């Protein structure tokens, strides 16, 4: 529903943000544009070093960008210091005050807004309840487990009643099982309060699991911003496809009639493919099947590698290597001749880079 968000100001807008750290020639963020719809959760996804953390620093005011502007709910805040901005951050480490109890940590933002001690504690308890830790209100940070401490940090950030909630890899220091619980907690709380949220992560399953929208960042620029399902089905570029685990890319071009011409012949494409001209055919490994019959292409198995219960196969076709993820069963051997079925619905074409 993009038309809905376009009527009101976005919760957070970054406009042409450029940041270069002293002593570095290459900018960390290079003219980054990013919109987060009001009340929605955006996952900022990308490899390490792509500028995710810097984006959070700019949005929170901890870093003033060399160029560009930051807007919160339509108001420019580029030069507003963090303490007056209303962008609460949850970092990878909980960053709780070690000499304060969990309750007093959560009461801290309200105290900073001049609320009375009693008042701040009452609302803090409600926030602790929201993350299910009201029973541990009197504990000191050292007496909390990593997950508990991070939940207190989340409660504390919510207690700031922020215009935007920024989460910088908040779960990556936690055990995998705990991570799932924390994700569920985050989505519940976020939907309940409808607070505009940015979740920075390098984990694409995490991004896809919690986000309304995923923004894929690489080398300081935005590669694509889309709903999670669209990002997987319709990557905007080869880089996006590769990052999301789709290594197959067969070169060719899309004919004016919307068919993909390559050494394998002219292949049908789904109607959604609007691109014409040179490009790469991409198809996810789990969509490809072994098969027989007219709708298949010939291939020679290049390599076979077990991947858990599945088998990862690379097979050479006339147009290039195709990656296949086979369900449990008896996989073919290397050098074996096979035929591959590439379902039309799963085919997609990205423009040729450069």
């Amino acid at each position, binding site marked *: 529903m993009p038309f809905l968000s376009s009527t009101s100001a976005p919760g957070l807008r970054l406009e042409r943000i450029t940041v270069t*750290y*002293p002593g570095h020639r290459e900018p*960390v963020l290079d003219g980054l544009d990013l919109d987060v719809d009001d009340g929605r959760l955006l996952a900022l996804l990308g490899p*390490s*070093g792509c500028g995710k*953390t*810097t984006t959070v*620093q700019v949005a929170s005011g*901890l*870093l*003033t960008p060399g160029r560009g502007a930051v807007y919160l709910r339509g108001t420019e805040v580029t030069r507003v210091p963090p303490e007056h901005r209303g962008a609460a951050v949850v970092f990878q480490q909980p960053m709780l005050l070690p000499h304060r109890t969990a309750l007093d940590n959560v009461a801290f933002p309200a105290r900073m807004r001049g609320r009375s001690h009693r008042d701040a504690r009452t609302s803090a308890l409600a926030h602790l309840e929201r993350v299910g830790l009201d029973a541990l209100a009197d504990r000191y940070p050292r007496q909390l487990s990593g997950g508990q401490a991070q939940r207190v940090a989340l409660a504390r950030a919510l207690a700031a009643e922020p215009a935007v909630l920024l989460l910088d890899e908040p779960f990556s220091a936690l055990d995998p099982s705990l991570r799932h619980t924390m994700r569920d907690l985050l989505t519940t709380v976020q939907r309940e309060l409808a607070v505009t949220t940015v979740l920075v992560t390098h984990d694409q399953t995490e991004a896809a699991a919690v986000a309304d929208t995923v923004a894929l960042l690489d080398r300081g620029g935005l590669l694509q911003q889309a709903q999670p399902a669209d990002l997987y089905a319709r990557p905007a570029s080869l880089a996006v496809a590769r990052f999301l685990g789709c290594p197959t890319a067969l070169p060719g071009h899309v004919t004016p009639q919307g068919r993909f011409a390559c050494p394998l012949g002219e292949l049908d494409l789904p109607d959604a493919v609007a691109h014409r001209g040179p490009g790469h055919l991409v198809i996810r490994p789990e969509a490809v099947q072994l098969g027989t019959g007219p709708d298949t292409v010939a291939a020679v198995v290049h390599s076979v590698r077990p991947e858990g219960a599945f088998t990862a196969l690379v097979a050479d076709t006339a147009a290039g290597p195709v990656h296949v993820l086979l369900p449990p069963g008896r996989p073919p051997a290397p050098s074996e001749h096979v035929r591959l079925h590439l379902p039309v619905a799963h085919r997609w074409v990205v423009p040729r880079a450069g």
Partner: protein
Amino acid sequence: MRRALHSAGFALLTVWIAAPLLPLLIWAFAGRWVYPALVPQDFTLRAWDQAAAPQQQVIAATGTSLGLALTTAVTATVLGALAARGLVLYRPPAAGLVRLLLLAPVLVPPFALAVGVQEVFVRAGLSDQPAGVALVHLVPALPYTVLVMIGGYATYDVRMEQTARTLGASRSAVLRHVTLPALAPALLASATLAFLVSWSEYLMTVLVGGGVVTTLPLLLFSTAAGSGNQALTAVLGILTVAPPILLFGVGAALLRRHRAAWADAEPASSSSSAAPGIER
């Protein structure tokens, strides 16, 4: 505005350091400088000549000071390194108590220690000897070396030694190629501090050395207290202050080179330090 504040801060720091030290420099070259003249009436090297004269013992005392300070630096650093290694890497029983005991001498009043040590030395025949003075200097120096070396070992990964052993390195090769390079900054800082403690020591030297062991601080004290010879006081002062400042300066430069060399070896470690936050 911000720049002006910076400059004012730097100026204040400079004045803070220079205020007591600058007059020393002027006095050392002053001939006649009678009150209330703001600058000396004439400049001369007389005080330096005086200091170089054999009957003033300055050169001999400098040698004694240097010998004591170097002995203390090496001994205290070795003892401190051994103790820190034992405390940090082996976590022995009562480690907390041992650490406390090793750091406690920093609080010991020098007079009490000196008179007590004198009692011991009179019985052991060590009184009025440089060796006895060196042993006394070790006591206040040790807590500093222990503390610095504990800090050094805290960030030291003993698995580097184990890895080197599995690659065929002997114990001495491990010491030379792994342990010493990794601990070099801590060892340097530790030795510098111990040197400084010994080099500055006055009261215990004078009480335990019995006037036979003459160091630079002893000459400085007696000149400053009794002679009224400000020019000679200033010269002795400069001789006393120059080596420590030189040592700190060289140490800092070496440390910076060491850090730079190690930082280059770790290209991936910049992610956390690259976030300058409010540093700008």
